[in-house]
């Protein structure tokens, strides 16, 4: 199965790290990074009509200005099921706030949560899980 990535994080460094780790893991993986969640959402909406079999893993930060991770998930869940099923939303954050972590995991489109920083090990096990899903 083919995999691609969308990284949503307001921190430029964190976007860079995620991109590098993904690209160093497999040069064929396609990565898009967004510092603004709204733009990521628009891209997902625009690609709604594309009919392909690529599964996209969305690495989503929680605390972001303008549109935070929660607001992104709220909007994402309004998309039709045919679109949603092509994405696996994984929260990637540095938060230690349990209330936020539990709250984000109550959304059933949120697949799991990873603690920052992203490492190759975390990425590999995530890719494996996404493919077995």
């Amino acid at each position, binding site marked *: 199965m083919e995999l691609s990535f969308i990284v949503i994080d307001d*921190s*430029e460094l*964190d976007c860079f*790290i995620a991109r*590098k780790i993904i690209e160093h893991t497999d040069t064929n993986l396609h990565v898009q990074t967004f510092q603004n969640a709204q733009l990521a959402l628009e891209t997902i909406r625009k690609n709604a009509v594309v009919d392909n079999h690529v599964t996209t893993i969305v690495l989503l930060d929680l605390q972001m200005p*303008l549109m935070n991770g929660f607001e992104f998930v709220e909007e994402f869940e309004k998309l039709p099921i045919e679109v949603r099923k092509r994405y696996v939303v994984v929260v990637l954050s540095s938060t230690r*706030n349990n209330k936020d972590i539990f709250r984000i995991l109550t959304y059933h489109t949120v697949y799991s949560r990873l603690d920052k920083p992203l*490492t190759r090990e975390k990425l590999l096990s995530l890719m494996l899980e996404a493919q077995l899903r």
Partner: protein
Amino acid sequence: MSDKIKILYVDDEPDNLVGFKASLRLDYHILTAINIPQAMSCLDNHPDIKVIFCDQRMPGITGVEFFEDIRVSYPLPVRILLTAYTDVESIINAINKGNIFRYVRKPWAEADIVSAIDEANKFYMANSMLAIKNDELQKAYDELNKFAYSVSHDIRGPLSGILGAINIAREIDDVEEMREMLYLMEKSLKKLDTYIISMHDYYSLQRGELKIIDIDFSKLLDELKPIYSVMSKTNNVEFNIHVNQHEVFRSDEVPLKLIFNNLLSNAFKYQDKKRSNRSVEVTVEVQKSMATILIKDTGIGILGSHIGEIFNLFYRANSQEVGSGFGLYNVKSALLKLNGQIEVNSVMHQGTNFKVTIPSI
């Protein structure tokens, strides 16, 4: 207005009211009421009544019942019962329920009343201090919660980024790629540093007394100018300062500098990169003991729906990662200390104007 303690005396006998007022009015501000409706309107019109004396035996209602009725709606005044009768049961009951502070036997001796007022006033002051301290404590708790929340994002965030960068550094061979990463790491560390400095500003603003000195705005801005001149040159933003001060202005330099620094760094930081004639303009006008400071930029502007929130702690209206969410909150705290005001006018893609007015202290 006198600073005399305000006292309300409720009794159905006019002679008692007159006598009470006559003997105490020199030292206290005495209000009297001959019935319950009058007493209620007194309480409504004078929220600063500190002590209420009430006769126990009145037509239709006892003093104990009256105190019980007003206890919830007027919790602040200290309640003292006056009684000629030895209604021991009802008095003990009322004291135990907390409806009255103490009682004075009728006919009263002036010394008893004075000592009762004295004690009641101390009790009142202690209670109001407690209420103020409780509010302050609640505010401190709320802010502590916000801090605890921001720690993982604003401190742990940049650190985990740098840690992640170190992890992948082992696999990067390309020098250009490495340089790009070092640049981003530096940016992340600078952000963390800014956060820590702002946190320090925040604490020094919360504590600490004002140190009032004569302020010369031209001199003050000359001290700040070099930092912003560098920004002005490197980012190609015109920087102009006009000061018009012909009178003495007294204030605290530290919060003043903080206000200028935050507003100026924002003015430079949020410039519209696509635009050609970029500028930041500062005007200070001191007149009639009032300083009016205008800071105008040609920046990206603030969306109308965000303007109400920009002074909140940790609020960021922009997705560029430069902000810590501290700056304007600190500006507002500094203005609160200096008794100043701030107004914002902003047009998207045109620029933002901040107008600050501060009185000389």
